[in-house]
């Protein structure tokens, strides 16, 4: 039986009708057409589908659509707005060449942003642990870690 779900995505309110055996990832990609969030393993291993749920990074493939009724989601599309500057994490990913095929990038950016929000000056070890649930099969991890360090610097300058 279809259920009505209200959710907030990137600050906007949405209402969708869905069978309960669909995930938050299905709703984002198929109903709301927010395809920046990627479907990788569909089992919580790869982190390509990472979004912020009430501010915390989660695997959207492991959450049933009805579970997010009334809750707030931020996807990669909500990290920066069109015609406005990119988020410092996004800028740093471009500047440090931390993107190869790009499939893992939305999830990486979300995990990195969440890390810097809770820990503005992470050590290299803390960066690696925070991104451990995000796989990059191009294996470009060195550049990704460099980008997160650079983003931390950028955000520090922005605060001072």
């Amino acid at each position: 039986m279809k259920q009505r779900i209200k959710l907030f995505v990137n600050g906007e309110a949405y209402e969708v009708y869905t069978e309960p055996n669909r995930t938050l990832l299905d709703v984002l990609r198929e109903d709301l057409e927010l395809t920046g969030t990627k479907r990788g393993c569909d089992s919580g291993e790869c982190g390509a589908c990472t979004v912020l749920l009430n501010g915390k990074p989660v695997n959207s493939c492991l959450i049933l659509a009805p579970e997010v009724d009334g809750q707030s989601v931020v996807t990669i599309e909500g990290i920066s707005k069109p015609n406005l500057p990119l988020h410092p994490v996004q800028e740093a990913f471009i500047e440090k060449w931390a993107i190869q095929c790009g499939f893992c990038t939305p999830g990486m950016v979300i995990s990195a942003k969440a890390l810097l929000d809770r820990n503005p000056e992470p050590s290299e070890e803390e960066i690696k642990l925070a991104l451990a649930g995000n796989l990059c099969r191009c294996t470009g991890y060195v550049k990704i870690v460099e980008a997160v360090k650079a983003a931390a610097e950028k955000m520090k300058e922005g605060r001072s």
Partner: protein
Amino acid sequence: MGSLPPFEYLEPSTLQYALYILNRYGESASILAGGTDLLVQMRDGKKTPKYVVNIKKIPQLEGIRLENEGVVIGALTTVNKIHESNLIKEKFPALHQAAGVLASYQVRNRATIGGNLCNASPAADLAPPLLIYEAKLKIAGLKGEDEVPIKRFFLGPGKTVIEQGMILKEIYIPTPKEHTYSIHLKFGERRAMECAIINVAASISIGDSICEDAKIALGSVAPTPIRSENAEAELRGKKLDEEVIKRAAEAAAKDSKPISDIRASAEYRREMVKVFVRRALHSLMIESNMGNR
């Protein structure tokens, strides 16, 4: 990965109503807590519930509070919340450590302590620390509540004393006595998203430079997480030194009953029990020497 089979979704907001639903639907119902195991099992076709019962709307099942010289953790408390709790870090460092190495940060934001225990994987990361702290699990059923020591909770892979129609409500952990030191070590191929090759938790209680009490728990080396009583006996009443630690580590290896699987052979696992129990005890010995100085 397949898609999720159809089911009816239920969201009871009280414990009583949840118990009523679970009793009414019996085996055709599955409890949804964090969902990080259940959804994967459903996609794999290992579980095909007709009813998925989300218990996260039941308020009193979540949170960490002090009670009766110990701490009570609601079954729905997420693994990250446990890892980030200063109270847990201070009183139960081995649980704090284990909660920090379970799967990934994203999974830890959803996965719950109750789910980790009720799934009853022999490799459940939170089980060895709870075994050394001798946690007690409060289980609710329609007929009332029952308290089960964690040592008696696991029956086999995927099997616990919880029967259809019951819900794990909370976990009580008594505060260890003074001068108790504890640690958790996880060994796997990688440092994240890893099902442990072995898990070790150990604690020692020191009085007059003597190891008055010791607890050793092992994960991934038997059908359930286990305590190693022979290793504990080797430590009790002794002054810790390299020789005593070595004997305890060997006893722990003998107590383990590992299998060979895709992650490691039984022989390797047994050898690693020896290495990691020794490492854990060595580190506790150093910590206790510093603490007693």
